């Protein structure tokens, strides 16, 4: 159909065709300009990582320095920490997040009362809609050393209080909990929409055959949402090198004492760039992240498209 129109228009002559198209180019212009400024100019900015940047001279005026910045970065022990933190947190988030969200979606789907189900769903989604800054205040209300709820409970029980924002060992758990708390509503809704799409006929047939609820979940629900689960899973593997800046910057309040367990690539880049104005190190880390990220996304997408064409990104 589209092809027919195209040739049809062309037959009427190029002139009319272009005249007709000009308004469409006008509509495209603001978006295209924005995309070039916001997405494509920074792609050229990657060259910063290979330069000894002098802000006064600009990117083009600054001398090249090859892989010097990367060498400096990977010499530091921080480089190992931030990569380990970024990847490990993501692995834990993916596993726990997927399992809990599927369990929650299955249970929510079992709730008979429509009103109750809607109330549960809206309230569990609520944390997802809140900014990370506000989340840091919520966390602070629990963990503040002097006025936090947990310390006052500990005091009440006659136990020693804990300087939460100075003690590293608790943070992997706190950050994981906060991540799940904020994100579970979102992924629960995604899995729920996949479960709701399953035809009731399957369950009807299973019930007639005397299948228990558990058998129905195991043999109908789980196999049928598998495509969604696998797609979500692989796409998050593709993003394993990215981290949620808000979670790792705001929630530990950028506390230096906690860096070795809370600092991810994104937080490191922010601190190096904005606190130390270190273009060399920060751009090396940031470019390393985007290139590895690109390779991972491409690989993940390739796998998704092999597994199920319609779920691939492109």
């Amino acid at each position: 159909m589209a092809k027919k129109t195209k040739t049809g228009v062309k037959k009427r002559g190029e002139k009319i065709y272009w005249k007709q198209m000009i308004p469409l180019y006008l509509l495209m212009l603001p978006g295209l300009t924005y995309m070039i400024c916001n997405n494509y100019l920074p792609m050229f900015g990657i060259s910063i990582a290979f330069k000894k940047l002098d802000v006064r001279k600009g990117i083009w005026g600054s001398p090249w320095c090859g892989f010097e910045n990367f060498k400096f970065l990977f010499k530091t022990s921080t480089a190992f920490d931030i990569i380990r933190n970024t990847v490990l947190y993501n692995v834990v988030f993916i596993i726990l997040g997927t399992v809990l969200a599927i369990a929650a979606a299955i249970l929510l789907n079992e709730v008979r009362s429509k009103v109750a189900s809607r109330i549960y769903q809206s309230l569990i989604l609520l944390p997802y809609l809140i900014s990370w800054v506000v989340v840091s205040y919520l966390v602070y209300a629990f963990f503040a050393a002097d006025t936090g709820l947990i310390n006052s409970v500990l005091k009440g029980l006659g136990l020693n209080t804990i300087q939460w924002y100075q003690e590293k060992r608790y943070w992997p758990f706190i950050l994981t909990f906060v991540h799940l708390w904020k994100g579970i509503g979102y992924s629960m809704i995604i899995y729920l929409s996949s479960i709701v799409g399953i035809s009731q006929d399957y369950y009807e047939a299973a019930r007639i055959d005397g299948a228990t609820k558990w058998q129905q979940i195991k043999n109908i629900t789980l196999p049928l949402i598998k495509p969604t689960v696998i797609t979500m899973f692989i796409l998050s593997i593709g993003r394993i090198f990215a981290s949620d800046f808000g979670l790792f910057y705001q929630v530990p309040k950028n506390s230096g004492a906690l860096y070795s367990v809370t600092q991810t690539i994104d937080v490191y880049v922010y601190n190096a760039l904005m606190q130390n104005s270190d273009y060399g190190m920060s751009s090396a880390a940031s470019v390393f992240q985007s290139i590895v990220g690109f390779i991972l996304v491409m690989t993940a997408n390739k796998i998704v498209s092999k597994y199920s064409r319609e779920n691939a990104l492109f």
Partner: protein
Amino acid sequence: MKGKETIRWQIYANAAMTVLTLLALIPFILLIIASFTDNQWATVNGFSFFPGKWSMEAYKYIAASWSTIGKSYLMTIIVTAAGTALSLVVTAAFAYSLSDTRLPGGRFVNFLCVFTMLFGGGIVASYYTWSQIFHIRNTIFALIFPGLLMNAFNVILVKNYFTFSVPASLKEAARIDGAGELKIFASIVLPLSVPILATIGLMTGLMYWNDWTNGLYYLNQRDGSKYYTIQLILNQMNENISYLSKNASQMAGVSVGSLPATTVRMAIAVVGVLPVLVIYPFLQKYFVKGITLGAVKE
């Protein structure tokens, strides 16, 4: 047997959902109670769900310093409204141009758009571009432009809606009647696309309301604080606290006096989150729709 099993599952499901719901709500409840706690009492006893002494002091403080907080509130509203409106116009226009398969070069631009989802220059390159090339630092544009104005995901959603949910016959009929593309876009396609525009508009609005990273990167405390939104006021208090605890001995730069009391900070957080909490019940089904739309790509 059957009935018993059903009842048992109802109990499981409702119990589990009640636990999750409470977990989601409790931190907000604590925050709100903390903001109504007497500061003196909180300093001695810490926050509690059942404070020994309630107080409106924190909110009186906010009312008294409304010149700062009210201004940041106004700034949040301006940025959210302007950003969302601009974002919708730019996204819809761009998506419409891409939805026309006859457009020469359209497929290439479409590829450029999809490619931005796969690869980016990274934070440092973006920062350099916006601050050194466009000199956006310490202007209100810093809160509207970088990163937030248009994204490939929304473009694809809107484009798909234009292609699959707006009847092609209507556009064709208008063309035969001699209507130009701009007229078709403005008076046929846009009015029929209100549902998708409302959905992505809502999500975009929420993104602008909640954003603090642009301010963190592009506004500094000295020259940019006049553009601080409520999120950035909250962030600034966080930064001042960590500055104080790092430099406890010197106390240079920030004096303890400039930092509001702990219950006041909680009250400012309540004020910052309140609009979302108030609006949410009315719009919750659109938020849910926005999420499922984003996930189930057609």
